[in-house]
């Protein structure tokens, strides 16, 4: 039963912390599976990603690589908007049905949850709301996990994201060694642990441990950037030769956008014939040369210079104008994924170091 809209999702309840032994985690997950569709980090064909699971054994919390962001759980790479068919000269159209049951998304990092809230701004803060996204978002309980193991490319703290932040979560798991401190942040979050005997009230020692772990994790983030007032800087250097140089090695693939937890641009395609087919939306990427190709053949962004600039402007300037926040959470996925090793941290440093002509 869904009682609330996403707008009051941020109402945070203060509940008593609980703990669960790590060995009991699978029991908890399996119990969830009886009632919900469960999505959790898993490894598919060598790639760690959030996927629907059917057993707790599929969950992988210590994958050797940073997992893919969970955005595809809400904003799948490909999504059918409607299908159509011509029968005896008459056209019929059908939309895919809404989700039938509630879902639980397990163990999302704080940066990725932050990214989800940023996507909420895009898809649900304007009319008309994106019903495809909203349906999935509203029917999904977000279970976060505090990030106690940052990667060398992480720079979330520089962008104001806390590896132990809880914003946007319904429930959070915090790793303190052989157990997790579990905190329900919303009613919905509380609902899924209520009545489970696996959860015990947290002891004082547990909470102290938690503080320690949290401090250590924050310190472990090596990258420190100063992006203060970057939106102003970007406007000032819009026409700077900096963009020509910084973009030179970009080959125009979609890896950065596809790996980014915040990137949300999509393309709408019709597939099929005049007799039958469907309309789908698929991820798009602003670095593709044809991203802005007009039907007329005109393309306002002909080179990687304009495209890289657009990418940075969007994330660090336009998004702030529209929603008051940066569209980057510092997860560093794009850094490792880029085939040319283009590093967003270096681009940001470069921007901040460029003096307007």
């Amino acid at each position, binding site marked *: 039963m869904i009682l609330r809209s996403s707008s009051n999702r941020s109402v945070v309840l203060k509940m008593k912390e609980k703990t669960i032994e790590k060995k009991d985690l699978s029991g908890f997950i399996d119990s969830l599976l009886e009632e919900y569709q469960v999505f959790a980090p898993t490894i598919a*064909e*060598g*790639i760690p990603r959030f996927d629907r699971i059917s057993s707790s054994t599929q969950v992988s919390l*210590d*994958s*050797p*690589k940073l997992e893919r962001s969970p955005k595809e759980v809400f904003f799948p*790479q*490909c999504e059918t908007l409607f299908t159509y068919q011509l029968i005896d000269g008459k056209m019929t159209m059908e939309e895919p049905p809404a989700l039938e049951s509630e879902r639980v998304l397990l163990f999302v990092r704080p940066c990725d949850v932050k990214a989800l809230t940023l996507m909420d701004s895009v898809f649900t803060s304007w009319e008309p709301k994106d019903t495809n996204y909203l349906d999935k978002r509203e029917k999904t309980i977000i279970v976060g996990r505090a990030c106690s193991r940052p*990667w*060398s*490319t992480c720079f979330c703290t520089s962008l104001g994201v806390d590896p132990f932040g809880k914003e946007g979560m319904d429930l959070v798991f915090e790793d303190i060694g052989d157990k997790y401190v579990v905190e329900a942040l919303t009613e919905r979050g509380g609902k899924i642990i209520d009545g489970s005997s696996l959860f015990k009230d947290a002891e004082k020692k547990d909470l102290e441990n938690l503080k320690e772990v949290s401090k250590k994790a924050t310190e472990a983030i090596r990258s420190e950037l100063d992006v203060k007032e970057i939106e102003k800087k970007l406007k000032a250097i819009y026409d700077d030769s900096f963009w020509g*140089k910084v973009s*030179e*090695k970009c*080959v*125009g*693939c*979609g*890896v950065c956008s*596809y*790996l980014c937890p915040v990137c949300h641009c999509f*393309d709408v*395609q019709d*597939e099929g014939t005049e007799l039958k087919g469907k309309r*789908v939306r*698929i*991820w798009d*990427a602003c670095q*593709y*040369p*044809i991203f802005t190709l007009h039907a007329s053949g005109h393309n306002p962004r002909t080179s990687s210079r304009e495209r890289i600039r657009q990418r940075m402007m969007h994330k660090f300037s336009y998004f702030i104008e529209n929603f008051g926040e940066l569209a980057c959470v510092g997860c560093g996925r794009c*850094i*490792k*994924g880029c*085939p*040319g*090793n*283009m*590093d967003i*941290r*270096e681009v940001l440093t470069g921007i901040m170091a460029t003096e307007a002509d």
Partner: protein
Amino acid sequence: MSEPRDQIREHARRLLDEGKVEVIIGYEKGSVPLQSTPCFVRDADNVERLIWDSTCGPNLAKYLFDREGKTGIVAKACDARSIVVGIVENQIEREDVVVIGVPCEGVIDLKKIDAVLDGKEILEASMDNDKVSVKGDGFEQILSKKEFLCDSCISCRHRNPPVYDILAGDELEETKESDEFEEISKLEAKSPEERWNHFSKELGKCIRCYACRNVCPLCYCKECFVDETMPSWCGKTTDLSDTMTYHIIRALHIAGRCVDCGACSRACPEDIDLRALTKKVEKIVRELYDYEPGLSLEELPVLGIFEQDDPQEFIK
């Protein structure tokens, strides 16, 4: 004789100083351990940024396509072969390019190293001729470089650039130690069903990010077939049929052109075994028409020509 790296820097400095080129495209140290990144040097004072080692994987020929002005480029043999194809296909002006050829013993495959580290993150690394030492939180390991070379480098038959203006480093002896098409033959030996399952699984991983296409120097089309409409050649979703179609057509498009530089495989974020396709088309063309691309500026595209007695056993 000095190190290839120093020779590269020296030639780069001279070319820039003498105004022979406007830019030198080479490699510099990347922001992640064991990764290099393309480097564009316009000022002779910056030539020290240029490096040459086993991390210099990206095929820099990519950056010659659609470029104006005189350009110097650091080219491994496979990069040089891509340049040759580019010249033959009217995409690169021979006189606009100064090829600083570098004989190459192979570049390392970071994915292979990551695989043996089992989740431990490399924070520091160094290399010498045969060894790679990696360091991270609480670990240090020394690896034999040879074991972590890219697959395309292991089967490489052309370690010396076939075409160059300046050679940095000494020519290497070509090796034919292993069977170049060993992996392909293994797949060929399987049943159609097994092969189908293999490719469904591999290509099913594709997220359609087009990194493979975009890093490939020979994918220089202004508009890729996959992006075209009227007609739409293949759906753009991750539907298996469409994804496979994309990869099949890409393989056909590089048939008789691909020089097996391995850039696509390295770029793939999903670790798809793309060489299983590219190497196969290379093998087909080799077997049917006895042809290897990118070795001579006089060659003609093998699929644009014909012989009266070309094989045709498959035609009823």
